Every structure is written in structure tokens, then in C-alpha cells.
């Protein structure tokens, strides 16, 4: 006996949602990945980490890239950030190819990577100082961004005095202070506990609603992807390729009630099927050892 759900098709969109996606398609393309490929030379020969990655991110979109472990998500975002180079294809920001890291693609890492010798304020000022802003101007701008992430009482504290969620918010403020064209986030909430993760997702939503920013977000958490994203790019492994780009059929901004919405569950199920395709091979059943007493009735 299995529980059955009457789920709608995840491709069904209400008129409002469809209209919204139509409006998004009118916006300019901010980030474009053209036939991106990455191959590694190892002792065993050539491994293809990524193959033919092709998609466009429009202005003010929130795109999630999701996939099983080892399908090249981190490689992809590092190539977009300029920390790695592709062996084929191009990354275009506003139509111009980019190959080196720069402030136009701000990045938030999984391990926060705040500068431990600088206070919160000085951390956020870092990017502005790289742009040769004067001290006073950099400071006032940094204070604005720290206020945006809600950490004004903690301006003069050092990173080691902050909790994980706060550190990540400082990292977001630091990246946003440079006013990048696109904000790249590499599993930013992966190192946080579940409750902080929920809080941070709400934070990110608020920031995204209030700031003119485009976000490319890597995650392995299916619920997070469906909750936050406009569109989800699903990657598959061996070699890394795009399996599908799903438009999430829910209006923005999301709220907690949508977590139990039928369409949410349908989209999530689709993601699950894509990432963990149901197989009936022998390996999917564990060998049973006779560890119970005869006559033991568990169920």
C-alpha cells in the first residue's frame, strides 16, 4: 500500500504566474553561459566535469542551480566567478565575455570567508576600498549595507564573535556593497543549522525583493530551491549537463503557506525524480540480515 497524491503537473501555471514569466522574458539578459565546458586532465585521462552548459539569466531573476553531489555545480559557479577557466564556451556578463574574477560578479562562499582581521564594517568596506573610494564615503556606504542586512549593532565586532548566520549576512553585505551585476552564491546556507537556514532564506528573499540584484544560487537542498527560485537549472552528473530548466509555478514572494501548496510539492517531486531517478535494480534493496527474534512483529 502506498500513499498516493493527486498532484498537478508542475508545468501548469496560473495566468498570473505565466504573465510574470512573460514579463521576465522582456528583461535584458545579465548573465549568459554559452556552451560552457570544462575538462580536467587527470592521470587516468580526460574527465569532463561540465558539458554544453547553456542558459541565460535575466535581470532581477533568482536562479537556482541544483544537482546531485559531484555533478559540477561548484565548478560551474567558480567558472562564472572567474576563479576557474572553461575549456570551451564563454561566460558573458551584459554581453561582454569575462574570464577573470571581478566585482561585477560578487560571490558568497559556503565557508563565509570573511577577513578575520577586519571588523564587520571594514569587511564590508573592503570592496569599496578596492574601488578607491575615500574612507568617509566607503564607511557610510558600508554602514548602509550592514543596515540592509540588519547587523548595525555589530559594526565593530570581529568575525569570530559572530554566529554563522550573521557571518553569512556580513558576507552578503560585503558582496552587495560592490553593486555587482550578479550575485553568485555557492551553497551559502549549507554550513548552517536547519533553523538558521530557514531564517536566512527569508533574509535572502527580503534582500532580493528590496535590492536591484540578480542572484545565481547553488544548492543541494530541493526545498530551498523551490522556495527561493524563479527558475531552477537541474544538472546531471557524468558529465555535468543540464537535465532541465524548471520554471517554478508559484508567485513571488513566497511565503510559508506555499510550502504545502500542491504545486510546490509537484515541483519538488519533479526535482527529486530528476536528481534521484527511480531505479528497480538489485542494488536498491539492502540485503536483509536475520537480526530479529522469530515471531517479532514490528509493523
Amino acid at each position, binding site marked *: 500500500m502506498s500513499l498516493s497524491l493527486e498532484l498537478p503537473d508542475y508545468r501548469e501555471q496560473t495566468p498570473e504566474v505565466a504573465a510574470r514569466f512573460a514579463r521576465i522574458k522582456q528583461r535584458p539578459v545579465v548573465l549568459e553561459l554559452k556552451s560552457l565546458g570544462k575538462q580536467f586532465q587527470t592521470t587516468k585521462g580526460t574527465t569532463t566535469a561540465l558539458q554544453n552548459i547553456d542558459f541565460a539569466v535575466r535581470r532581477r531573476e533568482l536562479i537556482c542551480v541544483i544537482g546531485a553531489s559531484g555533478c559540477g555545480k561548484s565548478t560551474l559557479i567558480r567558472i562564472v566567478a*572567474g576563479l576557474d577557466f572553461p575549456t570551451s564556451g564563454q561566460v558573458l556578463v551584459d554581453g561582454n565575455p569575462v574570464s577573470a574574477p*571581478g566585482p561585477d*560578479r560578487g560571490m558568497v562562499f559556503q565557508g563565509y570567508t570573511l*577577513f578575520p582581521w577586519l571588523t564587520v564594517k571594514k569587511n564590508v568596506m573592503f570592496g569599496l576600498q578596492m574601488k578607491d573610494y575615500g574612507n568617509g564615503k566607503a564607511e557610510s556606504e558600508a554602514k548602509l549595507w550592514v543596515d540592509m542586512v540588519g547587523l548595525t549593532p555589530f559594526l565593530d565586532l570581529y568575525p569570530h564573535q559572530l554566529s554563522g548566520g550573521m557571518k553569512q549576512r556580513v558576507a552578503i553585505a560585503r558582496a552587495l556593497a560592490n553593486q555587482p551585476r550578479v550575485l553568485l552564491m555557492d551553497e551559502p546556507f549549507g554550513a548552517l543549522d536547519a533553523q538558521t537556514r530557514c531564517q536566512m532564506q527569508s533574509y535572502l528573499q527580503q534582500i532580493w525583493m528590496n535590492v536591484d540584484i540578480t542572484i545565481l544560487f547553488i544548492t543541494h537542498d530541493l526545498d530551498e530551491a523551490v522556495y527561493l527560485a524563479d527558475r531552477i537549472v537541474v544538472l546531471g552528473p557524468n558529465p555535468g549537463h543540464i537535465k532541465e530548466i524548471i520554471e517554478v509555478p508559484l508567485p513571488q514572494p513566497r511565503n510559508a503557506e506555499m510550502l504545502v501548496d500542491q504545486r510546490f510539492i509537484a515541483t519538488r517531486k519533479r526535482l527529486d525524480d530528476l536528481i534521484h531517478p527511480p531505479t528497480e535494480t538489485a542494488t536498491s534493496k539492502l540485503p536483509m540480515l536475520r537480526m530479529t527474534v522469530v515471531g517479532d512483529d514490528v509493523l
Partner: protein
Amino acid sequence: MIRTPLSPARAMVLKVCAFLMPLVVWCITSYVPWIWHPAMRITEPGDSGMRVKSYLSLKDFAEFNEALVKDGSKPMAGRRSNPYWFPAPHEVLFAMYTAFTTPPLNKGDPWLHESLAHSIKIIAIGFSLAAILAIPLGLLCGTFDLFSKLNEPFVDFVRYMPAPAFSALLLGIFGFNDQAKIGLITLATFFSMVLVIANTTRTLDPALLEAAQTLGANRKRLLTRVVFPGIVANLYNDLRIMIGASWTALMIAELIGEKTGLSLFISQQAKYFNYANVYAGIILIGLIGLITDQTLQFFGRFLFPWQAKPVDVVSRTVIAAVTFVPRKVLGLVRKPRSSSSERVSDVSVA
């Protein structure tokens, strides 16, 4: 029990005992007459021609006295004591005071405080020179592989050459004066320092460099605004340890060419058989090294407030008072905040 620390009170008691135990053994051996005392200290020379307060072994004393008595001269009188090279603790203690107040035996010789100042001058110049050269080179070697492969193999090779091997060369180049000694200390310290600093530079988390690059830092700024501040705390620690190493080189440097400094004092006092002064000199060297190291460690905790090590209130106030002027100059003075070691979390923000 295993790998659990003791309570601070107990730890302090044991630390005191660590110094007390050798002292107690020394006292017992010096003051309890039948434990050792294999020599005779002459109190009355009689007709022997030996000076008062000089030493003879028990056998020699007995033989000499026999010979004197056989001759018909007055025998020596003495009491049992430890050999001339093993003074009692109180003698060493007095010597530590009198060494500074006694004028030198020869008119032109330096006083002890002059020798001490000379030693400190040589090590200060030698070490500073080595540091000024080694820090930039070490930083570059640790950051750029080009520099590393270019410099480190040679530096590694020279590092194994012991510094005293260069002494004859240095005396030839600079002559019999201070420059040779400073050169020796610089040589002895420089090569190890470069390698240590290069390794410390490599410990910097590369993710920090990547983060800085995504914030728009170019190569020069990466070096000055990320690499250097990132490792400066560990650099300070390395320098502190290297001072200890160069201290050893100092002792050798003082003995080449014309003897100067504390080593001069020690070897002169040994020549004159004032072994209490020798011990005093050695202990003085040890104390200076210890005090320098502890002071630097003490200040180090305060210079780098971003490290998550708590500093107690008394230390913090003392250090804050002493370093107020330099910190004001560097713009590091901040309004006082609650204890640095607390972690905050803003549970109230929704």
C-alpha cells in the same frame, strides 16, 4: 586524567616546583657537608704559598700537607667544600649584584652593564637587518611560486651551513670589530627566517584570496591587504621564536675576533676563577631571553585583537596603558566594548 588540564592553582604550584626542585638540589649539595664536598678550601695557607680561598682536591691537600710537615713548615688549614666550579646559591646571588657594582679588574675593560648593552646592540642590529631582508622575501616566496622556486633551494642549502663556519670569512671582510659580529647574527638568522616566513605565508586560507579577488583586488592589493594582514599574527610569533634562535648566534658572535659583551664577562670571570660570576652571567643571559620572550608573547595577544583568545582584565588594562600612544598613532584606539571572547547572536531579529 589523560589529556585533561589541571586546575590553574595546581598548575601554578607545579610551575613553581619546576624551578624550586633544581634549586633545592643545589642547596642541599652546597650546604649539607657530607653529600659531596670533594675538595678542600684553604682558610690558612701556612707556609704553602697558596692563596686563601683557593681550592685543592682532598688528595692533593693531604699530600701537600704531608710534605710541608715533613719539611718542618706550617701545614695548611682548610675546610671541605665543593669544587671551585660549583659555587653555593648564595654566592651566585651576591655575585649577581656585585658583578654590576664591582669595577673591572683592568682599567680599560668594560663594566658589566656596558658589556650587556653591547650584546643587546649587536643582536638588535643583526636581527633587525635579517628581519628587514627576510620578511619581504619570505612573503614573496610564500605567495608566488616563481620566487619560491627561484630562491628556496639555495636558501635551504645555505641554512645547513652552521654560522660559526662563516666567522673566519666575516673577520676577513669586516675586520676585528662589531660589523663581523652583526654579520654573523644576520647570516645565522636570515636563511632560516626566510623559509619559516614562506611557510607561514602558505598557511593563509586560499579561500580568502579568492574572496578578495571577487571583490576586485589586484595582485599588489592581494599581497598588502590580504596576505600580509592575514598572517601578521603568525609572523609576529615566528619572529619571536627566531629571536630565541639568534640569541644562540649572539653567544658565538661575541667570541669571534675580539671578545665582547656578556660572553667576554663570562670567559674573563672564568679566567680569574670567579665561578660565581660565571654562573651569574649565564643565569643573566637566560633571564634576559626569558623576559624578552614572555614580554613579546604578552603584548602579542593584545596587538592582534581579532584572534579569539581571551585576555584577562588586568593584562588588558596594563597593555592598553603602555601601548596607548602607538595605538593612537596607528588609529587603532576604539571605544571600549564588552569582553572580546563573547559570541553574540541576534536571536531577536526576525
